[in-house]
């Protein structure tokens, strides 16, 4: 029943959070990120807390007298007198766990193995990033009030830029990116990575990922984790614009990261096509937002947040 409750609580948390974001017109990415992280973290914390408050919460009389929803009633239903709905539920959980393993765990394991064998993503002796990059980075560092991280160049024709490491972060950019981007675009790309370092994105994402990992079976966390990562990108876009003052350039820079959708048959190609399409869609959302460059309410709204968390916890207590 633990698994069932966690999934149900996550679904309720997701619904309530999405409604809260709509009702209160919350557009500030940092606030949206906080709400989305709540969907991932809160269900994992609520269940043990509820059991601590009411040890008999799983018992018959709590389910009968107090609960507003008892999942066991549904799980006991058999479809056409043959397949129990509980079996269908657990099969769905198995599929989600499999997806999580294939999509997220295999790349992590590969990365760790590569690191162990010295093929880390951070090239130790890559070619110099050049004086232009150094100059831009120095300028951005002064503006942001943080030390300039080391920059490594990878021998890759595709335009790629990312931040690696959390305690000693570094920026890795590809040769392809340096050849494609002009000075302003390179500045925007570097500013965006500096924003990730300033926000300690790698560390935050890792912490949220731990919760995500604990709930590997939970499809709701799978969806929400991705949305939280997207929110983090939007936060860094805003920080980039505050550093460069050029949302238009950042938008054109982002266009360089569109990938062509692979065509053809086969499960692997299909998966890649879905991934690429999703990546492009997320980029489009970021570009549209930068082009609109609307004024939004940036208030942290802690009262609204507290009310949302209280509502989620209040409802979930009665869902067993």
């Amino acid at each position, binding site marked *: 029943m633990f698994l069932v409750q966690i999934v149900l609580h996550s679904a309720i948390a997701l619904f309530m959070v999405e409604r809260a974001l709509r*009702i209160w017109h919350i557009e500030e990415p940092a606030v949206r990120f906080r709400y989305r992280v709540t969907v991932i973290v809160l269900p994992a914390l609520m269940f043990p807390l509820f059991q601590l408050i009411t040890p008999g919460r799983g018992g018959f009389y709590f389910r009968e007298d107090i609960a*507003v929803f008892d999942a066991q009633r549904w799980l006991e239903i058999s479809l056409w007198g043959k397949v129990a709905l509980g079996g269908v539920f657990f099969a769905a959980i198995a599929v989600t766990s499999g997806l999580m393993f294939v999509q997220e765990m295999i790349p992590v394991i590969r990365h760790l193995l590569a690191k162990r064998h010295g093929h880390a993503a951070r090239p130790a002796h890559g070619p110099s990033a050049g004086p232009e990059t150094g100059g831009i980075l120095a300028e951005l560092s002064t503006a942001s009030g943080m030390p300039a991280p080391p920059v490594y160049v990878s021998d890759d024709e595709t335009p790629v830029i990312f931040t690696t490491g959390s305690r000693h972060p570094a920026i890795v950019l590809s040769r392809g990116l340096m050849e494609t981007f002009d000075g302003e675009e390179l500045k925007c790309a570097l500013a965006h990575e500096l924003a990730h370092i300033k926000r300690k994105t790698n560390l935050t994402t890792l912490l949220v990922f731990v919760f995500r990992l604990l709930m590997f079976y939970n499809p709701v966390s799978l969806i929400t984790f991705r949305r939280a990562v997207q929110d983090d990108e939007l936060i860094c876009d805003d920080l980039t614009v505050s550093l460069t003052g050029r949302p238009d350039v950042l938008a054109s820079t982002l266009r360089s990261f569109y990938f062509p959708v692979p065509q053809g048959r086969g499960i692997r190609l299909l998966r890649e096509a879905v991934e690429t399409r999703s990546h492009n869609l997320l980029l489009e959302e970021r570009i549209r937002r930068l082009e609109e460059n609307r004024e939004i309410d940036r208030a942290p709204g802690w009262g609204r947040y507290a009310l*949302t968390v209280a509502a989620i916890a209040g409802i979930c207590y009665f869902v067993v």
Partner: protein
Amino acid sequence: MRLKTAVLFLVTVGAVVLVLMVVNWFPLAVKKDTVRRYSTLEGVREELGRRDIYLPSYFPQSLRWPPSEIYASKDVLLMHFTHRETGELILSLSQTARGAGPLSSRIEPERIIKEDTVLLKGREVRLSLAVCGDGRPCNKALLGEGGYTFEVIFRGPVEELRKITESLLPEGQ
């Protein structure tokens, strides 16, 4: 936070609770053999078609009739009885078909002091002298009869429990 949006949010909370309640009711409507609460024994007989309900012919004077709670399915029947004056739950009587999962009573003995097997109307009855969480006696009798397992838990003297249990059994064997 504007009042209008706060109200809208609270309405959403109410709607979620309402939907959950409706969704919670649905399995009861489609699944007839699930354990559910009944207000009368006649209701159990009519809706479940059960003609095999065992009732004790002896009840202590302090007990209020009818049962304060009845939970039943095709295989399980559980009744709770309260004290006539205090309203406290003092007797629990369950009848479970062999092989079916038992339904736990609201009165649960916490510590068994002594257990013994006694003969009542020629049947073996497992009698447990026990106390509940509050330290007061809540004795239990367990027996099998006519394809069912009976559990009688009484918050009172063991002699009364014996009488109740004995009166539950039909004469002879």
